[in-house]
């Protein structure tokens, strides 16, 4: 470390109070930045985790979500018989025709009715979604009024514990298993037998079909086959693309909001940093004069004070990241407006997000420190030395 850098870093420590307050201001900004983006990150990865690269979901043409899609019963065998669909050991297609409806259940937190997704699934659903594993209990038995509930739904909506009875669709259902699904959106859902769900909800068709492809590279030929069949008014999508689309609107809103708020807030913090650095320069006018007299160039002085300012801001950035960390893994929920269902998800602070926060703090330090640093470099040597 050069003499001058060392000098600047040490002077930072000399004025502890001021430095701490400036860093504190920047820390708050970074904490807000990281936390809001952690919401967007968590929501997005929850939905994206719901899609598997091996699966395709088939919806009615021009439908943007399962809740507004419809697939007629006679369409199912046509889709299932296509050669691109993978087969199980028994030679039967790995596909699940599904129904997604919404029931109102009170939330645990505020007792307000929430739109809880209920998915009626076929017997092969658990083979198509391999990430599903049971944390408690067992799968529902086909043909019975038994249901399985996602782990996050259990904690978020009232009356969904293992063994309890839930009333919806004019009948009573028993929870016999709680499943996890790698934090995917399925963890907010209730699953049951589609053949019992359809009459309960007065439906006579499916809403979507999810199939496992024999090979993920076959998607294009699968899509061509479905579009080429005049009997089908359907559109297949890669499951991952479908869920990524689902998350887009909400993620964009949160990101824009978070960035907008933190950008404005950061201006305030930058003014604070500027004040501190101007004061630092004013205090040390004589020292700066001495450095210049010793032969340090103007440029060197600028970089030195910029370094000091950035270092100060980085300290704030690190504190901010640490302040934000406790929210990681906290679960919360919001409505996914493309399907109108409530999705529970967890705040996710990724390393990339923290690096983003640190870069952001460094930029605040650089912008806040630039003018004071230039001022420091411009002080005439003779006048600076004369100052008391």
């Amino acid at each position, binding site marked *: 470390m050069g003499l001058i850098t060392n000098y600047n870093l040490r002077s930072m420590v000399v004025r502890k109070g*001021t430095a701490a307050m400036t860093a504190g201001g920047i820390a708050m900004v970074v904490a*807000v930045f990281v936390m*809001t983006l952690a919401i967007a990150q968590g929501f997005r990865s929850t939905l994206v985790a719901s899609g598997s690269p091996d699966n395709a979901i088939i919806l*009615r043409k021009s439908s943007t979500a399962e809740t507004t899609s419809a697939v007629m019963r006679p369409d199912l065998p046509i889709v299932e018989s296509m050669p691109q669909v993978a087969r199980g050991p028994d030679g039967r297609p790995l596909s699940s025709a599904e129904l997604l409806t919404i029931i109102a259940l009170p939330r645990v937190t505020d007792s307000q009715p929430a739109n809880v997704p209920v998915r009626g699934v076929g017997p092969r659903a658990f083979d198509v979604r391999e990430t599903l594993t049971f944390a408690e209990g067992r799968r529902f038995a086909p043909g019975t009024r038994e249901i399985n509930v996602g782990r996050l739904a259990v904690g978020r909506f009232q009356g969904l514990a293992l063994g309890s009875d839930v009333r919806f669709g004019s009948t009573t259902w028993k929870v016999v298993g709680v499943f996890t699904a790698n934090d995917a959106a399925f963890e907010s859902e209730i699953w049951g037998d589609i053949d019992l769900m359809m009459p309960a909800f007065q439906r006579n068709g499916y809403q979507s079909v999810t199939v496992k492809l024999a090979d993920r590279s076959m998607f294009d030929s699968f899509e061509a086959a479905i579009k080429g069949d005049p009997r089908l008014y359907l559109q297949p999508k890669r499951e991952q693309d479908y869920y990524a689309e689902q998350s887009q609107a909400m993620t964009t809103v949160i990101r824009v909001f978070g960035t907008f708020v933190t950008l404005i*807030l950061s*201006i305030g913090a930058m003014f604070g940093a500027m004040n501190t650095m101007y004061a630092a320069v004013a205090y040390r006018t004589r020292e700066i004069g001495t450095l210049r007299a010793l032969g340090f160039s103007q440029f060197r002085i600028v970089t030195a004070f910029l370094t000091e300012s950035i270092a100060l801001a980085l300290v704030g950035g690190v504190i901010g990241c640490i302040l934000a960390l406790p929210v990681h893994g906290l679960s919360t929920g919001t409505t996914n407006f493309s399907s109108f269902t409530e999705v529970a998800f967890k705040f996710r602070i990724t390393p990339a997000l923290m690096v983003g926060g640190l870069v952001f703090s460094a930029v605040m330090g650089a912008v806040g420190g630039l003018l004071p640093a230039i001022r420091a470099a411009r002080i005439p040597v003779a006048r600076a030395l004369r100052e008391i």
Partner: protein
Amino acid sequence: MKFLGLVLKSAKRSKRRTLLTVMSVAIAVFLFAALRAVLDGFNAGAEAASSTRVVTIRSTSLMFQMPISHLETIKNIPGVQDVTYASWFGGIYKDPKNFFGQFAVDPEGYLRMYPEIQLTPDERKAFLDDRTGCIIGDGLARIYGFKVGDKITLQVGIPLYGQRDYDFTVRAIYRSGGAAVDNQSMMFHWKYADERSMLKGQIGWYVTQIANPDQAPQIMRAIDEKFANSPYETKTDTERAFQTSFVSMFGNLSLLLGSIALAVVITTLFVAANTMAMSVRERTTEIAVMRTLGFPSATIFLLVAGEGLLMATVGGILGIAAARTIVNPRFLNAGGFIPEIGVNNTNVLVALALSVGIGLLAGLIPATMASRLKIVDALRRVA
């Protein structure tokens, strides 16, 4: 008051620093007022909800519909004055991103139920007379530039309504006379949608006007009992509860916005307190001289605290002025995704109180420092 000149003088001592501090307080107050306005915008519907209107939906969830025959049954319940109905259409205007509320309503009954929807008698007649006519809120009209006489085509979003596109003619632009009805929605004749619907006579929800708000609990129970054990069981709630459940869909907004607002306040406190401390440190000698001249330490305390208060208040006023201008439906819209937001007088008062609070808190420690200064030590100090 007689010290105001002195306070101003010391604020002017370092103009740049004062300016930066005032600006950072202004920005914080701006953000704070804007966040409050957003939260109020979300809650406005529930706040303005009428106590004489109750809403009946299917007990399963809002997604499910019920037959039009419920209308007569509800009408005959004692205490009920008037009933109307509406359905969510969920159509797509050009692109799914263009989201706004579209309601298929019983036109006459709906306008009677919601006096908040303000139309002139001519506009009202024009809408009632045209089966494919619609009315558009002035907020929505501003976003998409809709004018009376325009044709609007909606693609079907919910398979129930068939596959063909629906064409509408804008017959009027309505103004909202209360937050219970937002001004970013479109309403049209329920019959038009029902004609093409795959299932006839389906209603999303009923709105019931009751004579006496004290009777609400009994009437709500009476409505639900009428349909208990039928395939179309209902759940009736007050308009307020209905609106609140929509707001709660966004998640815990008040916690989110509240924590951000807290962070904003703390950040500003750091910045402002820091500046005040700096300015006191710079003036150590000066303050010592003043004490020697006979200024009591209480006066010194007030001088420093007053400076902080002055800066924060000026910053607060600037921030509020900016929020009033920028956070305004004319400038900002979220395309019908969230309600209209604007900074109201309560927001202004709270924000002003906040800036005064920041000023007092920020000045507190530096002012105490200044008033406790030991004269001899301070005078001995160089610089």
